[in-house]
Protein backbone atom coordinates (compact mmCIF):
# COMPACT_ATOMS: atom_id res chain seq x y z
CA UNK A 1 0.00 0.00 0.00
CA UNK A 2 1.45 3.27 -1.06
CA UNK A 3 1.27 6.02 1.51
CA UNK A 4 1.98 9.62 0.79
CA UNK A 5 5.29 10.79 2.15
CA UNK A 6 4.22 13.08 4.90
CA UNK A 7 7.13 15.41 4.45
CA UNK A 8 5.56 17.04 1.44
CA UNK A 9 5.59 20.64 0.51
CA UNK A 10 4.20 22.40 3.50
CA UNK A 11 3.37 22.34 7.12
CA UNK A 12 0.04 23.68 8.19
CA UNK A 13 -0.02 27.10 9.68
CA UNK A 14 3.67 27.40 10.22
CA UNK A 15 3.70 30.99 9.15
CA UNK A 16 1.65 31.77 12.21
CA UNK A 17 3.86 29.97 14.65
CA UNK A 18 6.65 31.94 16.25
CA UNK A 19 9.87 30.03 15.85
CA UNK A 20 11.61 31.81 18.65
CA UNK A 21 11.01 29.08 21.17
CA UNK A 22 14.34 27.86 22.44
CA UNK A 23 15.28 24.23 22.62
CA UNK A 24 15.28 24.34 26.39
CA UNK A 25 11.84 25.87 26.50
CA UNK A 26 10.61 23.38 23.95
CA UNK A 27 11.76 20.50 26.09
CA UNK A 28 10.04 21.86 29.16
CA UNK A 29 6.71 21.38 27.48
CA UNK A 30 5.70 19.18 24.55
CA UNK A 31 6.01 20.68 21.11
CA UNK A 32 3.55 20.13 18.30
CA UNK A 33 4.25 18.20 15.08
CA UNK A 34 3.89 21.38 13.03
CA UNK A 35 6.86 22.89 14.87
CA UNK A 36 9.14 20.33 13.25
CA UNK A 37 8.67 21.79 9.78
CA UNK A 38 9.09 25.05 7.95
CA UNK A 39 6.47 26.25 5.52
CA UNK A 40 8.28 24.72 2.55
CA UNK A 41 8.29 21.31 4.23
CA UNK A 42 11.92 21.32 5.26
CA UNK A 43 12.88 20.63 8.87
CA UNK A 44 12.74 23.57 11.21
CA UNK A 45 15.61 24.75 13.38
CA UNK A 46 13.80 23.24 16.34
CA UNK A 47 13.65 19.84 14.64
CA UNK A 48 17.32 19.92 13.72
CA UNK A 49 18.34 20.98 17.19
CA UNK A 50 16.33 18.17 18.78
CA UNK A 51 17.37 15.38 16.40
CA UNK A 52 18.79 12.39 18.20
CA UNK A 53 17.40 13.54 21.53
CA UNK A 54 14.53 12.22 23.56
CA UNK A 55 11.70 14.70 23.03
CA UNK A 56 7.99 15.06 23.78
CA UNK A 57 5.33 15.90 21.21
CA UNK A 58 1.63 16.49 21.74
CA UNK A 59 -0.95 15.61 19.15
CA UNK A 60 -3.48 12.96 18.21
CA UNK A 61 -3.25 9.30 17.26
CA UNK A 62 -4.56 8.63 13.77
CA UNK A 63 -6.62 5.44 13.60
CA UNK A 64 -3.95 2.72 13.44
CA UNK A 65 -3.00 1.42 10.01
CA UNK A 66 -3.02 -2.15 11.29
CA UNK A 67 -3.91 -4.08 14.42
CA UNK A 68 -1.28 -5.11 16.95
CA UNK A 69 1.18 -2.56 15.60
CA UNK A 70 4.12 -0.95 17.32
CA UNK A 71 3.65 2.11 15.21
CA UNK A 72 1.14 4.93 14.87
CA UNK A 73 0.88 8.31 13.17
CA UNK A 74 0.82 11.39 15.39
CA UNK A 75 -1.29 14.13 13.81
CA UNK A 76 -1.47 17.84 14.48
CA UNK A 77 -5.27 17.84 14.44
CA UNK A 78 -7.79 15.03 14.83
CA UNK A 79 -7.44 13.09 11.60
CA UNK A 80 -10.75 13.73 9.89
CA UNK A 81 -11.71 11.43 7.07
CA UNK A 82 -13.89 13.24 4.62
CA UNK A 83 -15.90 11.13 2.19
CA UNK A 84 -16.66 14.17 0.08
CA UNK A 85 -13.04 15.38 -0.02
CA UNK A 86 -11.16 12.16 -0.55
CA UNK A 87 -11.71 8.89 -2.30
CA UNK A 88 -9.28 7.43 0.21
CA UNK A 89 -7.42 8.81 3.18
CA UNK A 90 -4.73 11.37 2.41
CA UNK A 91 -2.24 12.25 5.05
CA UNK A 92 -1.70 15.87 5.95
CA UNK A 93 1.89 17.10 5.87
CA UNK A 94 2.23 18.03 9.53
CA UNK A 95 2.39 14.53 11.04
CA UNK A 96 4.97 12.27 12.60
CA UNK A 97 5.52 8.51 12.68
CA UNK A 98 5.83 7.10 16.19
CA UNK A 99 7.49 3.71 16.79
CA UNK A 100 6.58 2.47 20.24
CA UNK A 101 8.26 0.22 22.75
CA UNK A 102 5.12 -1.84 23.15
CA UNK A 103 2.15 -2.79 21.00
CA UNK A 104 -0.05 0.23 20.46
CA UNK A 105 -3.21 0.44 22.53
CA UNK A 106 -5.31 2.70 20.29
CA UNK A 107 -6.39 6.08 21.62
CA UNK A 108 -9.51 7.64 20.10
CA UNK A 109 -8.45 9.99 17.34
CA UNK A 110 -9.83 13.16 18.96
CA UNK A 111 -8.19 12.61 22.36
CA UNK A 112 -4.99 14.58 22.78
CA UNK A 113 -1.92 12.68 23.91
CA UNK A 114 1.78 13.25 24.50
CA UNK A 115 4.33 10.96 22.86
CA UNK A 116 7.91 10.77 24.03
CA UNK A 117 10.77 9.20 22.12
CA UNK A 118 14.01 9.75 20.25
CA UNK A 119 13.57 12.09 17.31
CA UNK A 120 15.10 10.66 14.13
CA UNK A 121 15.29 12.70 10.95
CA UNK A 122 15.76 10.39 8.00
CA UNK A 123 13.67 8.50 5.51
CA UNK A 124 12.15 5.20 6.54
CA UNK A 125 9.51 3.01 4.95
CA UNK A 126 7.58 0.87 7.39
CA UNK A 127 8.03 -2.71 6.15
CA UNK A 128 4.53 -3.84 7.13
CA UNK A 129 2.39 -0.88 6.13
CA UNK A 130 4.54 0.76 3.47
CA UNK A 131 4.18 4.04 5.31
CA UNK A 132 7.02 6.32 4.27
CA UNK A 133 8.29 8.77 6.87
CA UNK A 134 11.01 11.39 6.79
CA UNK A 135 10.99 11.88 10.56
CA UNK A 136 9.87 9.73 13.46
CA UNK A 137 10.01 9.04 17.15
CA UNK A 138 11.70 5.79 18.09
CA UNK A 139 11.60 3.82 21.32
CA UNK A 140 8.52 5.84 22.16
CA UNK A 141 5.92 5.84 24.89
CA UNK A 142 2.71 7.86 25.00
CA UNK A 143 0.11 8.87 27.50
Amino acid at each position, binding site marked *: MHRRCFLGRTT*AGLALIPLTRTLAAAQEQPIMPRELYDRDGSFSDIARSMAGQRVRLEGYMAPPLKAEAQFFVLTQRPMAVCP*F*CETSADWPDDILAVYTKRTVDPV*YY*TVELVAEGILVLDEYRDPETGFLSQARLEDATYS
Partner: protein
Amino acid sequence: MTRTLTASTFALAAATAMPAFAQDLPQTGNEWFIAAQDTVAAALERQQNTDRALNIILMVSDGNGVGSNYATRLFAGQQAGNFGDEHVLPFETFPNLALVKTYNVNSQTPDSAGTGTAMMSGVKTNIGVVGVTSEVVRGDCSTLEGNTVASFNEIADGMGKATGIVSTARITHATPASAYAKSVDRNFEDAVPEGCESQSDIAQQLLAAMEAGVIDVAMGGGMRHFLPESEEGGRRADGQNLVEVAQNELGAQFASDMVTFGEIDPEADAPILGLFEMSHMMYEADRNDEPSLAEMTEAAITALQAKGGENGFFLQVEAGRVDHANHAGNAARMVRDGMAFAEAVALADEMTDDADTLIVVTADHEHSLAFNGYCGRGSDILGLCMTASDDQVEHSGEPELGADEKPYTVIGYLNGPGSILVPNDEGEFTGTRADVTNEEATDIDYLQQALIPKSSESHSGEDVAVYAKGPFAHLYDGTIEQNVIFHVMHHAMTAE
Protein backbone atom coordinates in the same frame (compact mmCIF):
# COMPACT_ATOMS: atom_id res chain seq x y z
CA MET B 1 -64.48 51.47 13.52
CA THR B 2 -61.03 50.05 14.01
CA ARG B 3 -60.71 49.25 10.32
CA THR B 4 -61.71 52.79 9.36
CA LEU B 5 -59.21 54.28 11.74
CA THR B 6 -56.43 52.07 10.46
CA ALA B 7 -57.17 52.92 6.86
CA SER B 8 -57.20 56.63 7.66
CA THR B 9 -53.91 56.30 9.48
CA PHE B 10 -52.32 54.63 6.45
CA ALA B 11 -53.65 57.32 4.15
CA LEU B 12 -52.23 60.03 6.34
CA ALA B 13 -48.90 58.27 6.56
CA ALA B 14 -48.77 57.82 2.80
CA ALA B 15 -49.50 61.47 2.22
CA THR B 16 -46.89 62.73 4.60
CA ALA B 17 -44.34 59.96 4.92
CA MET B 18 -41.60 61.20 2.62
CA PRO B 19 -41.42 64.85 3.78
CA ALA B 20 -41.73 63.89 7.45
CA PHE B 21 -39.17 61.10 6.98
CA ALA B 22 -36.63 63.46 5.51
CA GLN B 23 -37.16 66.53 7.63
CA ASP B 24 -38.84 66.02 10.96
CA LEU B 25 -37.76 62.75 12.53
CA PRO B 26 -35.36 63.12 15.41
CA GLN B 27 -33.08 60.43 14.00
CA THR B 28 -32.40 62.02 10.61
CA GLY B 29 -28.91 63.06 11.64
CA ASN B 30 -27.99 59.61 12.90
CA GLU B 31 -25.19 57.99 10.91
CA TRP B 32 -27.12 54.74 10.49
CA PHE B 33 -30.14 56.66 9.19
CA ILE B 34 -28.04 58.58 6.66
CA ALA B 35 -26.18 55.47 5.46
CA ALA B 36 -29.43 53.61 4.94
CA GLN B 37 -30.88 56.51 2.96
CA ASP B 38 -27.80 56.42 0.75
CA THR B 39 -28.38 52.72 0.19
CA VAL B 40 -31.95 53.35 -0.90
CA ALA B 41 -30.88 56.19 -3.16
CA ALA B 42 -28.32 53.94 -4.84
CA ALA B 43 -30.97 51.26 -5.34
CA LEU B 44 -33.28 53.80 -6.99
CA GLU B 45 -30.55 54.64 -9.46
CA ARG B 46 -30.06 51.03 -10.52
CA GLN B 47 -30.71 50.21 -14.15
CA GLN B 48 -31.49 46.74 -15.41
CA ASN B 49 -29.08 45.45 -18.02
CA THR B 50 -30.98 43.47 -20.66
CA ASP B 51 -28.17 43.19 -23.18
CA ARG B 52 -26.84 39.80 -24.17
CA ALA B 53 -23.95 38.67 -21.98
CA LEU B 54 -20.73 38.27 -23.94
CA ASN B 55 -18.94 36.66 -21.01
CA ILE B 56 -20.19 34.75 -18.00
CA ILE B 57 -18.19 33.83 -14.90
CA LEU B 58 -19.73 31.45 -12.38
CA MET B 59 -17.85 31.58 -9.08
CA VAL B 60 -18.69 28.86 -6.58
CA SER B 61 -17.31 28.79 -3.08
CA ASP B 62 -17.87 25.17 -2.14
CA GLY B 63 -19.65 24.83 1.19
CA ASN B 64 -19.87 28.60 1.67
CA GLY B 65 -23.49 28.99 2.71
CA VAL B 66 -24.84 32.14 4.31
CA GLY B 67 -23.39 31.12 7.68
CA SER B 68 -19.92 30.27 6.43
CA ASN B 69 -19.91 33.46 4.40
CA TYR B 70 -20.87 35.43 7.51
CA ALA B 71 -17.81 33.99 9.28
CA THR B 72 -15.56 35.03 6.40
CA ARG B 73 -17.05 38.52 6.36
CA LEU B 74 -16.29 39.03 10.03
CA PHE B 75 -12.83 37.51 9.72
CA ALA B 76 -11.96 39.76 6.79
CA GLY B 77 -13.22 42.80 8.66
CA GLN B 78 -11.33 41.88 11.79
CA GLN B 79 -8.16 41.30 9.78
CA ALA B 80 -8.61 44.88 8.59
CA GLY B 81 -8.70 46.07 12.18
CA ASN B 82 -12.45 46.54 12.50
CA PHE B 83 -15.17 44.80 14.50
CA GLY B 84 -15.95 42.69 11.44
CA ASP B 85 -19.71 43.03 11.21
CA GLU B 86 -19.48 46.24 9.22
CA HIS B 87 -17.24 44.67 6.58
CA VAL B 88 -18.48 44.21 3.03
CA LEU B 89 -17.05 41.39 0.93
CA PRO B 90 -16.55 42.23 -2.76
CA PHE B 91 -19.58 40.27 -3.97
CA GLU B 92 -21.76 41.72 -1.23
CA THR B 93 -21.73 44.96 -3.23
CA PHE B 94 -23.35 43.20 -6.19
CA PRO B 95 -26.81 44.63 -6.86
CA ASN B 96 -28.77 41.42 -7.23
CA LEU B 97 -29.32 38.58 -4.81
CA ALA B 98 -31.43 35.50 -4.29
CA LEU B 99 -31.60 32.66 -1.83
CA VAL B 100 -31.01 29.22 -3.30
CA LYS B 101 -32.58 25.88 -2.36
CA THR B 102 -29.79 23.35 -2.75
CA TYR B 103 -31.31 19.93 -2.09
CA ASN B 104 -30.67 17.07 -4.53
CA VAL B 105 -33.52 15.08 -6.05
CA ASN B 106 -33.01 12.20 -3.62
CA SER B 107 -31.31 13.99 -0.75
CA GLN B 108 -32.43 16.76 1.60
CA THR B 109 -28.74 17.38 2.30
CA PRO B 110 -26.95 17.82 -1.01
CA ASP B 111 -23.46 17.07 -2.23
CA SER B 112 -21.34 18.97 -4.71
CA ALA B 113 -21.91 16.54 -7.56
CA GLY B 114 -25.66 16.98 -7.53
CA THR B 115 -25.43 20.72 -6.93
CA GLY B 116 -22.74 21.24 -9.56
CA THR B 117 -24.90 19.44 -12.11
CA ALA B 118 -27.88 21.64 -11.18
CA MET B 119 -25.94 24.86 -11.72
CA MET B 120 -24.12 23.68 -14.83
CA SER B 121 -26.90 21.87 -16.68
CA GLY B 122 -30.20 23.30 -15.43
CA VAL B 123 -31.62 20.13 -13.90
CA LYS B 124 -31.45 18.80 -10.37
CA THR B 125 -30.17 15.29 -10.00
CA ASN B 126 -29.20 12.75 -7.35
CA ILE B 127 -26.46 12.98 -4.79
CA GLY B 128 -23.10 11.63 -5.96
CA VAL B 129 -23.59 11.73 -9.73
CA VAL B 130 -22.22 14.24 -12.25
CA GLY B 131 -23.63 15.42 -15.57
CA VAL B 132 -26.50 12.96 -15.54
CA THR B 133 -30.17 13.02 -14.59
CA SER B 134 -31.80 11.45 -11.56
CA GLU B 135 -32.77 8.49 -13.75
CA VAL B 136 -29.25 7.20 -13.21
CA VAL B 137 -28.56 4.76 -10.39
CA ARG B 138 -25.35 5.80 -8.65
CA GLY B 139 -22.49 3.50 -9.55
CA ASP B 140 -24.46 1.59 -12.21
CA CYS B 141 -22.87 2.28 -15.58
CA SER B 142 -25.71 0.53 -17.39
CA THR B 143 -28.04 3.40 -16.45
CA LEU B 144 -25.93 6.14 -18.06
CA GLU B 145 -27.07 5.89 -21.66
CA GLY B 146 -29.84 8.33 -22.50
CA ASN B 147 -29.54 10.09 -19.18
CA THR B 148 -26.69 12.54 -19.72
CA VAL B 149 -27.07 16.32 -19.80
CA ALA B 150 -25.20 19.10 -21.61
CA SER B 151 -23.04 21.34 -19.46
CA PHE B 152 -22.80 25.10 -19.67
CA ASN B 153 -19.25 24.79 -20.97
CA GLU B 154 -20.48 22.63 -23.82
CA ILE B 155 -23.27 25.05 -24.63
CA ALA B 156 -20.95 28.06 -24.52
CA ASP B 157 -18.43 26.23 -26.69
CA GLY B 158 -21.21 25.57 -29.18
CA MET B 159 -21.69 29.33 -29.43
CA GLY B 160 -18.02 29.81 -30.25
CA LYS B 161 -16.98 30.93 -26.79
CA ALA B 162 -13.81 29.91 -25.02
CA THR B 163 -14.40 28.09 -21.74
CA GLY B 164 -12.42 27.22 -18.67
CA ILE B 165 -12.46 25.77 -15.17
CA VAL B 166 -10.40 26.76 -12.16
CA SER B 167 -10.52 25.09 -8.75
CA THR B 168 -8.47 24.71 -5.61
CA ALA B 169 -9.86 21.18 -5.33
CA ARG B 170 -8.86 18.37 -7.64
CA ILE B 171 -9.85 19.35 -11.17
CA THR B 172 -11.62 15.97 -11.34
CA HIS B 173 -13.60 16.75 -8.17
CA ALA B 174 -17.36 17.17 -8.28
CA THR B 175 -17.80 20.89 -9.00
CA PRO B 176 -15.25 21.26 -11.83
CA ALA B 177 -16.25 17.83 -13.14
CA SER B 178 -19.78 19.14 -13.63
CA ALA B 179 -18.34 21.33 -16.39
CA TYR B 180 -17.28 18.45 -18.61
CA ALA B 181 -18.01 14.97 -17.19
CA LYS B 182 -20.91 12.51 -17.35
CA SER B 183 -20.35 9.98 -14.62
CA VAL B 184 -22.62 7.67 -12.68
CA ASP B 185 -20.33 8.19 -9.72
CA ARG B 186 -18.29 11.24 -8.73
CA ASN B 187 -15.54 8.99 -7.42
CA PHE B 188 -14.64 7.54 -10.83
CA GLU B 189 -11.83 10.07 -11.03
CA ASP B 190 -9.16 7.82 -12.57
CA ALA B 191 -10.89 4.51 -13.23
CA VAL B 192 -14.28 2.93 -13.78
CA PRO B 193 -15.36 -0.47 -12.45
CA GLU B 194 -14.62 -3.55 -14.47
CA GLY B 195 -17.28 -4.06 -17.09
CA CYS B 196 -18.28 -0.39 -17.18
CA GLU B 197 -18.20 0.48 -20.87
CA SER B 198 -20.65 3.36 -21.06
CA GLN B 199 -18.22 5.98 -19.76
CA SER B 200 -14.56 6.65 -19.20
CA ASP B 201 -13.09 7.95 -15.95
CA ILE B 202 -13.37 11.66 -15.15
CA ALA B 203 -9.73 12.57 -15.86
CA GLN B 204 -9.99 10.98 -19.28
CA GLN B 205 -13.21 12.90 -19.89
CA LEU B 206 -11.37 16.15 -19.16
CA LEU B 207 -8.72 15.27 -21.72
CA ALA B 208 -11.45 14.44 -24.22
CA ALA B 209 -13.16 17.77 -23.54
CA MET B 210 -9.87 19.58 -24.07
CA GLU B 211 -9.24 17.67 -27.29
CA ALA B 212 -12.72 18.56 -28.51
CA GLY B 213 -12.07 22.21 -27.73
CA VAL B 214 -14.81 22.37 -25.10
CA ILE B 215 -12.39 23.16 -22.28
CA ASP B 216 -9.60 25.59 -23.16
CA VAL B 217 -8.24 26.21 -19.67
CA ALA B 218 -8.24 23.82 -16.69
CA MET B 219 -6.30 24.59 -13.53
CA GLY B 220 -6.46 23.03 -10.08
CA GLY B 221 -5.20 20.02 -8.17
CA GLY B 222 -5.54 16.29 -8.76
CA MET B 223 -2.44 15.33 -10.72
CA ARG B 224 -2.53 11.83 -9.22
CA HIS B 225 -5.54 10.99 -11.37
CA PHE B 226 -3.57 11.85 -14.51
CA LEU B 227 -0.42 9.88 -13.68
CA PRO B 228 0.15 6.12 -13.82
CA GLU B 229 0.64 4.15 -10.62
CA SER B 230 4.22 3.58 -11.69
CA GLU B 231 4.98 7.23 -11.03
CA GLU B 232 5.30 8.60 -7.48
CA GLY B 233 1.82 9.49 -6.27
CA GLY B 234 0.09 8.37 -9.47
CA ARG B 235 -3.25 6.56 -9.22
CA ARG B 236 -3.98 5.41 -12.74
CA ALA B 237 -4.15 1.63 -12.83
CA ASP B 238 -4.40 1.66 -16.63
CA GLY B 239 -0.82 2.91 -16.85
CA GLN B 240 -1.70 5.98 -18.89
CA ASN B 241 0.10 9.26 -18.37
CA LEU B 242 -2.54 11.85 -19.24
CA VAL B 243 -0.18 14.75 -18.57
CA GLU B 244 2.02 13.48 -21.40
CA VAL B 245 -1.05 12.93 -23.56
CA ALA B 246 -2.13 16.54 -22.95
CA GLN B 247 1.30 17.89 -23.78
CA ASN B 248 2.23 15.62 -26.69
CA GLU B 249 -1.08 14.92 -28.38
CA LEU B 250 -3.10 18.03 -27.53
CA GLY B 251 -0.20 20.46 -27.53
CA ALA B 252 -1.30 21.74 -24.13
CA GLN B 253 0.75 24.11 -22.03
CA PHE B 254 1.29 22.40 -18.69
CA ALA B 255 2.05 23.95 -15.29
CA SER B 256 2.67 22.27 -11.94
CA ASP B 257 4.35 24.96 -9.81
CA MET B 258 4.90 28.69 -9.67
CA VAL B 259 7.75 28.58 -12.17
CA THR B 260 5.81 26.75 -14.85
CA PHE B 261 2.67 28.71 -13.99
CA GLY B 262 4.60 31.88 -14.74
CA GLU B 263 5.75 30.46 -18.07
CA ILE B 264 2.24 29.97 -19.42
CA ASP B 265 1.55 32.13 -22.44
CA PRO B 266 -2.13 33.06 -22.19
CA GLU B 267 -2.13 34.41 -25.72
CA ALA B 268 -0.91 31.14 -27.25
CA ASP B 269 -3.35 29.09 -29.27
CA ALA B 270 -3.02 26.01 -27.09
CA PRO B 271 -5.09 24.62 -24.24
CA ILE B 272 -3.78 25.16 -20.72
CA LEU B 273 -3.61 22.43 -18.09
CA GLY B 274 -2.42 23.30 -14.59
CA LEU B 275 -2.17 20.55 -11.96
CA PHE B 276 -0.48 21.93 -8.88
CA GLU B 277 -0.97 19.13 -6.36
CA MET B 278 -1.37 15.37 -6.38
CA SER B 279 -4.67 15.80 -4.57
CA HIS B 280 -6.36 19.08 -3.62
CA MET B 281 -4.37 22.29 -3.68
CA MET B 282 -3.21 23.58 -0.33
CA TYR B 283 -5.34 25.56 2.03
CA GLU B 284 -4.66 29.26 1.62
CA ALA B 285 -3.21 29.28 5.14
CA ASP B 286 -0.55 26.78 4.10
CA ARG B 287 -0.02 27.70 0.45
CA ASN B 288 3.51 27.29 -0.87
CA ASP B 289 4.80 27.21 -4.44
CA GLU B 290 1.39 27.15 -6.04
CA PRO B 291 -0.84 29.95 -7.31
CA SER B 292 -3.68 31.45 -5.31
CA LEU B 293 -7.25 31.17 -6.54
CA ALA B 294 -7.06 34.83 -7.58
CA GLU B 295 -3.88 34.23 -9.55
CA MET B 296 -5.41 31.26 -11.35
CA THR B 297 -8.57 33.26 -12.02
CA GLU B 298 -6.54 36.11 -13.47
CA ALA B 299 -4.57 33.76 -15.70
CA ALA B 300 -7.73 32.00 -16.85
CA ILE B 301 -9.60 35.20 -17.69
CA THR B 302 -6.60 36.57 -19.59
CA ALA B 303 -6.30 33.36 -21.58
CA LEU B 304 -10.04 33.06 -22.25
CA GLN B 305 -10.29 36.68 -23.36
CA ALA B 306 -7.57 35.94 -25.89
CA LYS B 307 -9.00 32.60 -26.99
CA GLY B 308 -12.63 33.69 -27.10
CA GLY B 309 -12.01 37.01 -28.78
CA GLU B 310 -15.20 38.72 -29.89
CA ASN B 311 -17.21 35.58 -29.11
CA GLY B 312 -16.49 35.91 -25.41
CA PHE B 313 -16.00 33.22 -22.79
CA PHE B 314 -17.45 31.21 -19.93
CA LEU B 315 -15.42 30.43 -16.82
CA GLN B 316 -16.28 28.38 -13.75
CA VAL B 317 -14.20 29.19 -10.67
CA GLU B 318 -14.40 27.09 -7.53
CA ALA B 319 -12.96 27.75 -4.07
CA GLY B 320 -12.94 24.07 -3.24
CA ARG B 321 -11.34 24.09 0.17
CA VAL B 322 -13.78 26.22 2.12
CA ASP B 323 -15.77 23.00 2.10
CA HIS B 324 -12.85 20.85 3.21
CA ALA B 325 -11.92 23.07 6.14
CA ASN B 326 -15.53 22.93 7.28
CA HIS B 327 -15.46 19.15 6.96
CA ALA B 328 -12.42 19.21 9.24
CA GLY B 329 -14.28 21.41 11.74
CA ASN B 330 -11.46 23.93 11.37
CA ALA B 331 -13.04 27.36 10.95
CA ALA B 332 -9.64 29.09 10.93
CA ARG B 333 -8.75 27.60 7.57
CA MET B 334 -12.29 27.92 6.25
CA VAL B 335 -12.36 31.70 6.58
CA ARG B 336 -8.90 32.11 5.09
CA ASP B 337 -9.95 30.19 1.99
CA GLY B 338 -13.12 32.27 2.06
CA MET B 339 -11.03 35.42 1.89
CA ALA B 340 -9.01 33.97 -0.98
CA PHE B 341 -12.30 33.40 -2.81
CA ALA B 342 -13.37 36.98 -2.19
CA GLU B 343 -10.08 38.20 -3.64
CA ALA B 344 -10.68 36.10 -6.75
CA VAL B 345 -14.15 37.59 -7.16
CA ALA B 346 -12.78 41.12 -6.82
CA LEU B 347 -10.17 40.42 -9.47
CA ALA B 348 -12.66 38.88 -11.88
CA ASP B 349 -14.87 41.93 -11.44
CA GLU B 350 -11.95 44.26 -12.01
CA MET B 351 -10.87 42.47 -15.19
CA THR B 352 -14.29 42.56 -16.85
CA ASP B 353 -16.94 45.07 -17.84
CA ASP B 354 -20.33 45.00 -16.11
CA ALA B 355 -21.90 46.02 -19.42
CA ASP B 356 -21.12 42.72 -21.13
CA THR B 357 -20.11 40.28 -18.39
CA LEU B 358 -22.45 38.46 -16.04
CA ILE B 359 -20.70 37.46 -12.82
CA VAL B 360 -22.56 34.98 -10.65
CA VAL B 361 -21.23 34.26 -7.16
CA THR B 362 -22.70 31.47 -5.10
CA ALA B 363 -22.10 28.37 -3.01
CA ASP B 364 -23.21 24.86 -3.73
CA HIS B 365 -24.33 24.04 -0.19
CA GLU B 366 -23.90 25.00 3.44
CA HIS B 367 -22.37 23.13 6.38
CA SER B 368 -23.49 22.25 9.89
CA LEU B 369 -21.84 25.26 11.52
CA ALA B 370 -23.86 27.67 13.62
CA PHE B 371 -23.22 30.76 15.70
CA ASN B 372 -23.55 31.30 19.43
CA GLY B 373 -24.65 34.46 21.23
CA TYR B 374 -24.89 36.96 22.66
CA CYS B 375 -21.47 38.10 21.59
CA GLY B 376 -20.39 41.73 21.87
CA ARG B 377 -19.01 43.66 18.93
CA GLY B 378 -15.48 42.68 18.03
CA SER B 379 -15.62 39.19 19.50
CA ASP B 380 -13.05 37.29 17.43
CA ILE B 381 -15.10 35.28 14.96
CA LEU B 382 -12.75 32.35 15.55
CA GLY B 383 -12.47 32.88 19.30
CA LEU B 384 -14.60 33.16 22.38
CA CYS B 385 -17.97 34.85 22.48
CA MET B 386 -17.44 37.90 24.71
CA THR B 387 -20.31 39.63 26.46
CA ALA B 388 -21.63 42.90 25.09
CA SER B 389 -20.75 46.01 27.03
CA ASP B 390 -23.32 48.51 28.30
CA ASP B 391 -21.02 51.49 28.06
CA GLN B 392 -18.95 50.93 24.92
CA VAL B 393 -19.39 49.52 21.44
CA GLU B 394 -16.66 46.92 21.81
CA HIS B 395 -17.28 43.80 23.86
CA SER B 396 -16.49 43.70 27.56
CA GLY B 397 -13.55 41.31 27.36
CA GLU B 398 -15.40 38.85 29.57
CA PRO B 399 -16.48 35.59 27.93
CA GLU B 400 -20.07 34.47 27.91
CA LEU B 401 -20.44 31.27 29.93
CA GLY B 402 -22.60 28.23 29.46
CA ALA B 403 -24.54 26.64 32.29
CA ASP B 404 -21.40 24.56 32.86
CA GLU B 405 -19.64 27.84 33.65
CA LYS B 406 -17.24 27.40 30.75
CA PRO B 407 -16.74 29.86 27.88
CA TYR B 408 -17.69 28.98 24.34
CA THR B 409 -16.59 30.07 20.88
CA VAL B 410 -18.67 32.16 18.51
CA ILE B 411 -18.69 29.35 15.95
CA GLY B 412 -19.76 25.82 16.70
CA TYR B 413 -20.46 22.76 14.59
CA LEU B 414 -23.36 20.40 15.07
CA ASN B 415 -21.17 17.43 14.18
CA GLY B 416 -17.63 16.54 13.22
CA PRO B 417 -14.18 15.75 14.58
CA GLY B 418 -14.44 18.57 17.11
CA SER B 419 -17.06 16.61 19.03
CA ILE B 420 -16.80 16.81 22.79
CA LEU B 421 -17.96 13.19 23.02
CA VAL B 422 -15.42 10.36 23.10
CA PRO B 423 -15.91 6.65 23.72
CA ASN B 424 -15.24 5.28 27.19
CA ASP B 425 -14.00 1.78 27.94
CA GLU B 426 -17.50 0.42 27.37
CA GLY B 427 -17.72 2.13 24.00
CA GLU B 428 -20.31 4.63 25.17
CA PHE B 429 -19.77 8.22 24.09
CA THR B 430 -19.56 10.68 26.94
CA GLY B 431 -17.80 13.95 27.52
CA THR B 432 -17.59 17.43 28.86
CA ARG B 433 -16.59 20.65 27.16
CA ALA B 434 -13.01 21.80 27.38
CA ASP B 435 -12.40 25.05 29.24
CA VAL B 436 -10.91 26.72 26.19
CA THR B 437 -9.06 30.04 26.19
CA ASN B 438 -9.28 32.67 23.50
CA GLU B 439 -5.66 32.00 22.54
CA GLU B 440 -6.35 28.30 22.08
CA ALA B 441 -9.54 28.94 20.14
CA THR B 442 -7.90 31.28 17.65
CA ASP B 443 -5.05 28.88 16.86
CA ILE B 444 -4.87 27.91 13.17
CA ASP B 445 -5.36 24.24 14.05
CA TYR B 446 -8.21 24.63 16.54
CA LEU B 447 -11.36 22.63 15.88
CA GLN B 448 -14.50 24.33 17.14
CA GLN B 449 -16.51 22.29 19.60
CA ALA B 450 -19.10 20.05 18.00
CA LEU B 451 -21.85 17.84 19.35
CA ILE B 452 -22.26 14.68 17.32
CA PRO B 453 -19.04 12.70 16.85
CA LYS B 454 -18.24 12.22 13.17
CA SER B 455 -14.84 11.96 11.52
CA SER B 456 -15.97 14.39 8.85
CA GLU B 457 -18.30 17.27 9.60
CA SER B 458 -21.30 17.21 7.28
CA HIS B 459 -22.97 19.44 4.74
CA SER B 460 -26.37 20.87 5.59
CA GLY B 461 -29.41 21.48 3.44
CA GLU B 462 -29.71 25.12 4.47
CA ASP B 463 -30.08 27.78 1.77
CA VAL B 464 -27.13 29.52 0.18
CA ALA B 465 -27.08 32.92 -1.51
CA VAL B 466 -26.43 33.84 -5.14
CA TYR B 467 -25.03 37.32 -5.85
CA ALA B 468 -24.90 38.69 -9.39
CA LYS B 469 -24.04 41.69 -11.51
CA GLY B 470 -24.10 42.32 -15.24
CA PRO B 471 -26.57 41.39 -17.98
CA PHE B 472 -29.82 39.93 -16.61
CA ALA B 473 -28.41 39.73 -13.10
CA HIS B 474 -31.75 41.14 -11.92
CA LEU B 475 -33.35 37.78 -12.73
CA TYR B 476 -31.68 36.42 -9.62
CA ASP B 477 -34.40 37.37 -7.18
CA GLY B 478 -36.43 35.79 -4.41
CA THR B 479 -35.92 32.21 -3.29
CA ILE B 480 -35.03 29.97 -6.22
CA GLU B 481 -34.23 26.36 -6.96
CA GLN B 482 -30.52 25.85 -7.58
CA ASN B 483 -30.95 24.76 -11.19
CA VAL B 484 -32.44 28.21 -11.97
CA ILE B 485 -28.88 29.56 -11.74
CA PHE B 486 -28.17 27.83 -15.06
CA HIS B 487 -31.30 29.19 -16.70
CA VAL B 488 -30.53 32.83 -15.90
CA MET B 489 -26.99 32.39 -17.24
CA HIS B 490 -28.38 30.71 -20.33
CA HIS B 491 -30.95 33.45 -20.89
CA ALA B 492 -28.29 36.11 -20.50
CA MET B 493 -26.00 34.35 -22.96
CA THR B 494 -28.67 33.81 -25.62
CA ALA B 495 -30.94 36.87 -25.24
CA GLU B 496 -31.90 38.60 -28.49
